[in-house]
């Protein structure tokens, strides 16, 4: 996935103007956000659990491939097949190869952001495999020909009327169904696809290095169906999803579900250790796990290492004022919101996503809710620094000159005096507001007006000199 030139200002301006979108996103994000807040508050020691979770992930990100190889060994010992993919292209080729060997024509898929990351559906479609998304939200946007707009609630931007209309047109269901009716239509349609599918495609919420197990967490049960019915399962797993021990699952699951939706636990947590065993009547006969790097090991070696700790819970999205105002599509990336602002430029290049580090007011709310304590605002700042470095010496010098002036007390005071005069005068100002940042400022705000009375420095001098002092020197 690659964006030639993403313009977040343009995309976000359009999104802000869309009121249906705004209301839909606000409603779900608010619900998830408050759910997370009360779930965290109700769990004694949640803060300590966050520290513990971070330390477990630090261990893994400190030696990613050692944990990944151990996972692969254990998986194979349990009868599964491990594959390594250095990048998106390799991952897609591996999956295509398996599908071709099987002569597969249909696949069901349980929501996977990693599969979105490598554009797996598009590739499989070209290879003649029809992929059906089975998470209801993903199914909706697949029917609509759209992309997910939230990593946990992919159809957050659609309201019931829009979904009813879509089902009516695409599936022939009666018009104007309520939510319960729509869910039944999806159940019936998707059940047939589950039963007919040649392959089940999943991601994994966690991959346990110690046992070679993968864990899939869903509320709908589509993860369980995808891994129970089709004869072959392919799991696409970013190597950042590894946790060291099976026991780690206990705490990390708590962090994930409470942060994502505020649930104590999701309805279904399936831990898969190898394919179907002898004599068993369910589960895939072949289990393939594709371990995807796609830039992760180089991330692990640098200053953004902690991004690999992300659980994809979506709490940062729900807490982010920018995400809530614009929704996911404006980011034009698989990963929206604060985690996406950071991940998209790191995975696909800062030149492709040069605007995203600015999609942040540095308000700090995301860091407050991130279960892994990823310093997201700080990472936005660091990306801005990298971007400055990329722009070269001339741009750096242009930014430095005002700092040099501002660091010189006399020049600083003279500059301030000039600005005060400008801001106090009507005509001078209106000229200023027609260009550059001043124009952007004046889009929704008037120019600032210096407060009444003497400026502070003059007042202070006056006071120091006492009531009879003279006032010729202005600060």
């Amino acid at each position: 996935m690659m964006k030639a030139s993403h313009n977040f200002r343009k995309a976000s301006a359009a999104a802000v103007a869309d009121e249906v979108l705004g209301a839909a996103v606000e409603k779900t994000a608010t619900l998830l956000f408050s759910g997370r807040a009360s779930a965290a508050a109700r769990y004694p020691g949640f803060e300590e659990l966050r520290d513990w979770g971070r330390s477990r992930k630090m261990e893994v990100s400190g030696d990613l491939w050692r944990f990944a190889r151990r996972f692969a060994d254990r998986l194979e010992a349990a009868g599964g097949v491990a594959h390594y993919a250095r990048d998106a292209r390799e991952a897609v080729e591996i999956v295509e190869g398996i599908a071709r060997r099987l002569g597969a024509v249909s696949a069901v898929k349980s929501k996977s952001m990693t599969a979105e990351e490598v554009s797996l559906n598009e590739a499989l479609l070209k290879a003649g495999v029809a992929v059906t998304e089975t998470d209801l939200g993903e199914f909706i946007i697949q029917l609509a020909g759209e992309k997910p707009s939230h990593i946990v609630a992919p159809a957050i931007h659609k309201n019931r009327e829009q979904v009813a209309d879509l089902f009516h047109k695409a599936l022939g269901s009666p018009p104007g169904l309520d939510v319960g009716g729509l869910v039944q239509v999806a159940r019936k349609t998707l059940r047939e696809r589950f039963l007919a599918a040649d392959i089940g495609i999943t991601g994994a919420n966690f991959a346990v290095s110690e046992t070679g197990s993968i864990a899939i967490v869903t509320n709908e049960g589509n993860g369980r169906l995808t891994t129970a019915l089709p004869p072959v399962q392919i799991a696409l797993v970013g190597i950042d999803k590894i946790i060291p021990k099976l026991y780690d699952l206990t705490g990390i699951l708590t962090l994930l579900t409470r942060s994502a939706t505020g649930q104590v636990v999701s309805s279904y947590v399936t831990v898969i250790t190898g394919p179907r065993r002898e004599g068993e009547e369910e589960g895939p006969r072949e289990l393939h796990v594709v371990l995807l790097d796609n830039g992760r090991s180089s991330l692990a070696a640098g200053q953004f290492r902690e991004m690999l700790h992300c659980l994809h819970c979506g709490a940062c999205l729900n807490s982010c004022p920018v995400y809530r105002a614009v929704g996911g599509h404006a980011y034009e990336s698989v990963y929206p919101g604060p985690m996406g602002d950071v991940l998209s430029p790191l995975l696909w290049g800062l030149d492709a996503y040069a605007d995203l580090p600015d999609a942040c007011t540095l308000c700090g709310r995301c860091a407050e809710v991130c279960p892994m304590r990823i310093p997201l605002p700080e990472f936005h700042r660091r990306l801005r620094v990298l971007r400055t470095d990329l722009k070269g010496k001339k741009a750096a010098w242009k930014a430095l000159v005002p700092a040099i002036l501002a660091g010189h007390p006399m020049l600083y005071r003279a500059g301030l005096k000039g600005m005060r005069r400008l801001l106090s005068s009507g005509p001078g100002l209106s000229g200023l507001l027609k260009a550059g940042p001043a124009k952007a400022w004046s889009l929704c705000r008037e120019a600032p007006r210096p407060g009444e009375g003497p400026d502070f420095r003059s007042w202070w001098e006056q006071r120091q000199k006492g009531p009879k002092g003279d006032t010729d020197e202005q600060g």
Partner: protein
Amino acid sequence: MSKAEVLERYIRMAQAAGTVVERVAKAELSVRLAALLGEEESSKMAALSASGWPEGLRESVEAVLASCGFEVTMARKDQSGYSWDRVRLGAASVGIVWCEKYLAETGSLVLTTGPGMGGLASLLPEISIVLSDADGCLEELAEYLHLAGAALPARMTLVTGPSRTGDIEATMTTGVHGPGKVVHFILDVD
């Protein structure tokens, strides 16, 4: 926490997650099960797990089903192992399985795979009925993992309440893929 307190906690958490929990004396099970089956407007087909049951319990469940007019489908065993009749399984509106262990901390059932364990019976039908012993209740997942040790099944699923979705306007709706109703009978030792 005492065993009784752990069980109480399980019931509280499972109910909060939307599971219907009923404690019954073993001798009462047939009557209660029949009452539940009688309430449901459904196809008269029930899917049952073939293995994993305590001595004689499956047979008494089958008897109740028969008395309520239900046909029963189970995974059948041949030389290659167990397999379902997919048509009959697909027609089942009720699935009944035995569950060895369940967890108080989250209100979760622990369902594991194994020959004839019939996981699909608790997944595909609209109504999932799960039976357990009162002493199968554990405090938390860590305890279960400790007990299981290295002997992990191919698939272990924690089931906590019905299948649900909030994907349309965050309106919680049950039964999207799996059962819309989960009933857990906890059998007290008489």
